[in-house]
C-alpha cells in the first residue's frame, strides 16, 4: 500500500495540497510492526499517522475497532477528532470516530464498549481502564493500529510505561496490531523507538524535514528585571506590546501560580481590553474548555498558559510564543517554540522573558544551546515496578490470569525487557498479600491463586476500587474551589495551601481575586473580591530541574571576564557579585555565609539542578543538626542551596565532605520528606494507598492519616519491603538525584571557597523569595515552637488555667 488511492489523491488536490515526503514514507511502511515519525509541529504529523488507517477503512469492510489513538492530553484527543472530521466528511468515508477520556459520559462509555467505533481517541489512563474490563477481548478484537501521539512526552514519565504495558496486553488480544509513534525532535530517538516496539521487534524511524531554525530572542524591555521573584511583572507593558503586534500569542509559564499572577497583572495593565485567556491544569474543566473553544474560534489574542498547553494541540494561527521564566531545559524550550506558526517551513517566532536577573543568564545560555542544536536529556532507567504492580491489579480486574503468561507478556515491553522472574514475583506477591515480612493477611489476601493455578481477585467487588485508582499521574491532594452558593467549581488548590487559609484571606484563581470564606465538605468556598493585591496562590505546578548541559553553559559564562552578550543590568549584577564575593566556578564549590533578619545563612553554589540541590540541603542540615548548629530550614534552586539556622557555620567543609555525605545519605534516606513524598507516589501507583474512594470524603475527620506514618512504620518494621526498595531507587534518580551530587563532588574534588560576609550577596538575593522552603524538623524547630508557644501563652495571659 504505497500509493495514495484515487479518492485520496483527489482530496489532496481539491485542498491544494501535495503529500509530504514523510507522509508518503509512513504510507509505504504502514505494514511494519513498529514505526516512529519524528517531525516538527505543523508538518502534517497527525495526518501522516492516520492516513494509512483512513485508507484501510475506506472500503467500509472492517468491523469494530481498527485504530486506537493515544495522546497525553484529553484536549489533544478532542482536537484530533475535530481535525479528522474534515477528510472523513469531505471524502465521505464510512468511518466512525469517537473519543474516550475522563470527560466522556457514562452512557457513551457503555455504548463504546458494546459497539466500539473504527477509530477511538483516548489517553493512557482511559486505555488502561478499558483493558481492565472483562469484555476487553471483545472491545479490542480486530484492532489493527495504535497511534501514540507526542510519544516523546509520554516516554519521559510513568504514563508512558503504563501505556506500553497496556499495549503488551492489546498485542495479545490482537496479535496483528501495528504500533506507530509520533514524536517531536528529541535527543535520542532510538531509545524512544525501542520502548514503542514490541521487544525484540525492530522499529523503523522516519525523520521529516525539521524545517528552518526558529527565530528566537530575549525580550528587551525598558524596565530592568528585578533582583528576585518569578512574576516578570516588569515585562507586562512590553509583553502587551508584542501581543498587539501579533495575531495570536501563547505566553508560557513554568508554574501555575506564576501563570495566575502574570495573568492577573496583565489584565490590570490591559487598558485596550485585548481578549486574553488563561489555561492551566488547576482550572475547572468548563473553564478550560471555554478558553480552548475561544482559542480555536480565533477569538483570543493571547493565552497565558503552563505545560497543560505544552503539547501539539493545533491552536490555529499562533504566530508568537513567549516563554516567561527561564526554560530550565533546552529540549522543552524547542518543543514549546514549535507551538508557534503551524505553517510548515516557516520559522517559528519566540521570545524569552527572564523573570529576574539570574534568569537573564539562564535565558542567554538557553538561546545559545538552541542555536547550537544542543538538546539535553538524561537516559531513563528500567521500567518502574510500582507501575507494574498496578498493571497486575488491572490484569486481575479483567479476569483470572496465568502468572507465567503475564510475565512473558510483560517482557515484550521494551522498558521491562530485563525484568527478572524474581522481581516479577515480588510484585505479584505484593499485589496478592501485601508482601510483608509479617505474613498478616492470609485471610484477606487481595489476589488468590486458584486450584487450576490461575490468579484472581479474592473479592470481585475490589475491581471497582482498583479501577477508580488507575493512573500514574502524581497529583498532590487538591480541593475544589467554588463560589459560595454556586455549584460550578472555579478550579482546584492544593490541600496544603487550603490548610494555611483563614477566613478573609484572598488569593488568585482563574485570574480573579477571591476571598476565602470556609471549608465545606472538602470544598473551599470563596467569594469574589475586587481587591488588586491578593495573597499569592501557592499551588505549585511542576518545577523542573535545570539540565546538566544548561548548568554547564551557565558556569562557563561566569568564567568570562565580561559579558557583552548580557544586558548591562545583568552584567553589572555579576560584576557586583564578583566584587563583593565571588562568582561560582565549575571546578569549585562556592559557599557564602552571612547574617540576615536575625538568622545565620549559608548559601552553597553547587549547580547540580533543583532536585540534587534539595538533597544537598537535606544532607547539610542533617550534619548541622549533629554539630548542634540548629538549622531551621533551607530552600534550593537549580544552582544553590540556602540554609538558615540559629548558629553560624564557621567551617562548611565538613558539610560537603564526600565520605561524610555518602555515609549521611544512607542514614538520611530512611527518614526524610523527599523520600516520604516519593514513597507516597509509588505506594499510590502500586495500590497501597487509594487516591479515590467509593464515597467522596465527607469531612477531614479521621478520614485519612498521613502516608508518612505508613512510611515510618515500614522503615521501622519492614525495611526491605518492596515499596521501600522502589522508593529508594526512584529517589536516587528523581527527586533525590544523588547522581548529580556525585557529579558535583567529582567535578569540584574538595575545592571549597568559603566567603564570609556581613550581608546578603547579589547572587544569593533571588533565593530569598524562592518558594518551597523546607523546615528542618530538629532541635532548632522544637526550640522555636517552644518559644512561640510560650510567647502565645504569655500574650493570652493564661500561663496556667
Amino acid at each position, binding site marked *: 500500500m504505497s500509493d495514495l488511492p484515487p479518492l485520496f489523491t483527489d482530496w489532496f488536490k481539491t485542498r491544494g495540497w501535495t503529500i509530504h515526503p514523510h507522509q508518503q514514507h509512513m504510507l509505504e511502511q504502514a505494514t511494519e510492526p513498529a514505526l516512529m515519525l519524528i517531525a516538527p509541529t505543523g508538518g502534517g504529523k497527525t495526518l501522516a499517522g492516520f492516513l494509512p488507517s483512513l485508507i484501510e477503512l475506506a472500503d467500509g469492510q472492517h468491523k469494530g475497532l481498527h485504530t486506537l489513538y493515544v495522546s497525553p492530553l484529553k484536549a489533544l484527543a478532542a482536537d484530533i477528532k475535530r481535525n479528522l472530521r474534515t477528510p472523513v466528511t469531505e471524502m465521505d468515508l464510512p468511518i466512525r470516530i469517537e473519543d474516550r477520556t475522563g470527560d466522556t459520559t457514562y452512557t457513551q462509555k457503555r455504548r463504546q464498549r458494546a459497539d466500539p467505533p473504527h477509530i477511538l481517541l483516548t489517553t493512557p489512563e482511559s486505555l488502561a481502564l478499558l483493558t481492565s474490563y472483562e469484555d476487553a477481548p471483545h472491545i479490542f478484537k480486530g484492532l489493527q493500529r495504535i497511534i501514540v501521539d507526542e510519544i516523546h512526552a509520554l516516554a519521559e514519565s510513568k504514563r508512558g510505561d503504563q501505556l506500553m504495558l497496556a499495549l503488551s496486553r492489546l498485542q495479545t488480544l490482537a496479535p496483528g496490531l501495528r504500533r506507530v509513534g509520533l514524536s517531536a525532535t528529541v535527543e535520542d530517538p532510538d531509545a524512544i523507538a525501542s520502548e514503542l516496539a514490541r521487544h525484540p521487534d525492530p522499529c523503523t524511524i522516519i525523520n521529516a524535514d525539521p524545517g528552518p531554525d526558529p527565530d528566537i530572542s530575549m525580550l528587551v524591555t525598558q524596565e530592568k528585571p528585578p533582583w528576585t521573584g518569578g512574576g516578570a511583572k516588569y515585562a507586562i507593558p512590553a509583553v502587551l506590546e508584542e501581543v498587539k503586534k501579533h495575531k495570536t500569542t501563547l505566553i508560557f509559564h513554568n508554574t501555575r501560580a506564576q501563570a495566575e499572577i502574570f495573568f492577573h497583572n496583565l489584565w490590570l495593565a490591559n487598558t485596550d481590553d485585548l481578549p486574553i485567556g488563561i489555561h492551566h491544569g488547576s482550572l475547572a474543566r468548563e473553564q478550560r474548555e471555554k478558553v480552548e473553544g475561544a482559542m480555536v474560534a480565533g477569538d483570543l489574542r493571547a493565552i497565558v498558559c503552563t505545560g497543560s498547553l505544552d503539547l501539539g494541540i493545533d491552536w490555529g494561527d499562533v504566530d508568537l510564543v513567549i516563554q516567561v521564566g527561564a526554560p530550565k531545559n533546552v529540549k522543552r524550550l524547542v518543543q514549546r517554540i514549535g507551538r508557534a506558526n503551524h505553517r510548515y517551513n516557516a520559522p517559528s517566532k519566540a521570545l524569552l522573558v527572564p523573570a529576574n536577573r539570574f534568569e537573564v543568564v539562564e535565558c542567554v545560555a538557553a538561546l545559545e544551546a538552541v542555536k547550537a542544536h544542543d538538546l539535553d536529556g538524561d537516559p531513563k532507567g528500567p521500567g518502574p515496578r510500582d507501575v507494574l504492580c498496578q498493571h497486575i491489579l488491572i490484569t486481575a480486574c479483567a479476569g483470572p490470569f496465568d502468572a507465567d503468561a503475564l510475565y512473558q507478556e510483560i517482557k515484550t515491553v521494551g522498558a521491562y525487557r530485563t525484568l527478572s522472574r524474581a522481581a516479577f514475583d515480588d510484585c505479584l506477591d505484593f499485589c496478592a498479600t501485601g508482601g510483608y515480612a509479617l505474613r498478616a493477611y492470609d485471610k484477606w489476601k487481595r489476589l488468590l491463586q486458584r486450584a487450576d493455578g490461575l490468579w484472581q481477585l479474592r473479592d470481585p467487588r475490589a475491581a471497582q476500587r482498583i479501577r477508580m485508582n488507575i493512573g500514574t499521574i502524581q497529583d498532590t491532594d487538591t480541593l475544589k474551589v467554588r463560589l459560595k452558593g454556586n455549584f460550578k467549581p472555579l478550579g482546584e488548590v492544593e490541600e496544603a495551601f487550603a490548610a494555611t487559609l483563614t477566613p478573609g484571606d484572598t488569593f488568585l484563581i482563574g485570574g480573579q481575586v477571591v476571598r476565602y470564606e470556609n471549608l465545606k465538605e472538602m470544598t473551599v468556598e470563596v467569594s469574589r473580591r475586587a481587591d488588586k493585591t491578593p495573597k499569592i496562590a501557592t499551588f505549585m505546578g511542576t518545577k523542573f530541574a535545570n539540565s546538566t548541559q544548561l548548568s554547564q553553559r551557565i558556569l562557563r559564562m561566569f568564567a568570562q571576564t565580561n559579558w557583552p552578550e548580557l544586558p548591562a543590568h545583568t552584567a553589572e549584577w555579576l560584576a557586583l557579585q564578583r566584587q563583593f564575593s565571588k562568582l561560582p566556578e565549575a571546578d569549585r564549590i562556592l559557599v557564602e555565609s552571612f547574617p540576615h533578619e536575625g538568622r545565620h545563612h549559608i548559601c552553597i553554589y553547587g549547580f547540580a539542578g533543583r532536585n540534587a540541590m534539595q538533597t544537598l540541603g537535606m544532607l547539610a542540615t542533617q550534619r548541622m543538626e549533629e554539630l548542634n548548629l540548629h538549622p531551621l530550614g533551607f530552600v534550593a534552586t537549580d544552582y544553590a542551596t540556602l540554609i538558615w539556622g540559629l548558629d553560624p557555620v564557621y567551617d562548611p567543609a565538613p558539610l560537603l565532605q564526600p565520605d561524610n555525605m555518602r555515609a549521611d545519605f544512607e542514614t538520611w534516606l530512611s527518614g526524610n520528606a523527599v523520600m516520604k513524598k516519593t514513597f507516597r507516589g509509588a505506594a499510590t501507583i502500586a495500590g497501597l494507598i487509594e487516591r479515590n474512594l467509593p464515597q467522596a470524603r465527607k469531612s477531614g475527620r479521621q478520614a485519612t492519616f498521613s502516608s508518612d506514618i505508613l512510611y515510618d512504620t515500614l522503615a521501622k518494621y*519492614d525495611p526491605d519491603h518492596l515499596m521501600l526498595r522502589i522508593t529508594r531507587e526512584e529517589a536516587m534518580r528523581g527527586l533525590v538525584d544523588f547522581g548529580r551530587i556525585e557529579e558535583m563532588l567529582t567535578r569540584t574534588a574538595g575545592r571549597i571557597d568559603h566567603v564570609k560576609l556581613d550581608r546578603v550577596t547579589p547572587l544569593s538575593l533571588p533565593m530569598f523569595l524562592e518558594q518551597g522552603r523546607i523546615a528542618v524538623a530538629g532541635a532548632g524547630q522544637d526550640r522555636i515552637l517552644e518559644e512561640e508557644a510560650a510567647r502565645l501563652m504569655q500574650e493570652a495571659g*493564661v500561663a496556667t488555667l
Partner: protein
Amino acid sequence: MLDLASGLSQADIMTAYHFSFCGTQCAALPSGALHLPDHDVLCVSDLHLGKSERIARRSGVMLPPYEVRETLEKLQADIAATRPTQIICLGDSFDDLEAAARLDEEMLLWLAQLQAGKTWIWVEGNHDPGPINLGGTHRSEIKIGTLSFRHIATAMTAEVSGHYHPKHRVAGRSRPAFLYDDCRLIMPAYGAYTGGLVSLTPALRQLFMRPPIAIMTGHKAIPVPVP
C-alpha cells in the same frame, strides 16, 4: 507542683506538661497519654488497634500490618515511665469488634503482659461498642477523683474524653494535641494509624465555652492557646 515521689522518671518530668484540671493534677505526656499522678492512673484514647486488618477485610488494601505493635510499644514505654496501677483505654481501642477478636497471638500475649497486675478499664467507643474477649473491665464511663472519663464529650463538666482526634498547628507544624478548658479535656488519638481533626474546626470548637489550650504532643508536651 511537681511530685517527685509519684514515680515519674526524670525524662518524663522534663517532657510532660503538668497542669491542674478541675481540681485534679494531670500530666500530659508527649506521647499523647494522660497521667494522673495522685491516682496512679494512665489514660490513653483511640488506639484503633487492628485498623490495618479491618481495612484489608473491607477494601482489599493491605496496609503495613504493624500498627498494633507500634502502638503497644509506645504504651509499654509510657507504662514503664509512669508505673500506674490503673490504665484507662478511653474508647475506640479497637478499630471494630471483629478486629479485636482477630488480634494475633503474639499481640494478645503482649497485651496480657501489659495488663498483668494492673486494673485495666476498656471504656466503650463508637468503634468498639460491645464487650471484648480480653482481660480487663468493660465500662461505658468511669469516675476518677473529680473527673469522669467517657469516649465522646457530653454537656457534663470535669470530663475527659477522646473520639475527635484533635490536632493543632503552631509555627507551621501540625501535631496531635490535647485540648482543654475549665470544663473538659479532649485527648489526642494514641494509635499509630490515626488521622486528626484540626483544633479550629467548628465541631471541636463548639465543645468549649472559651478558646481552649492545646497541649502539643511530640518530643515534649507544649501548651499553646488556641486562637
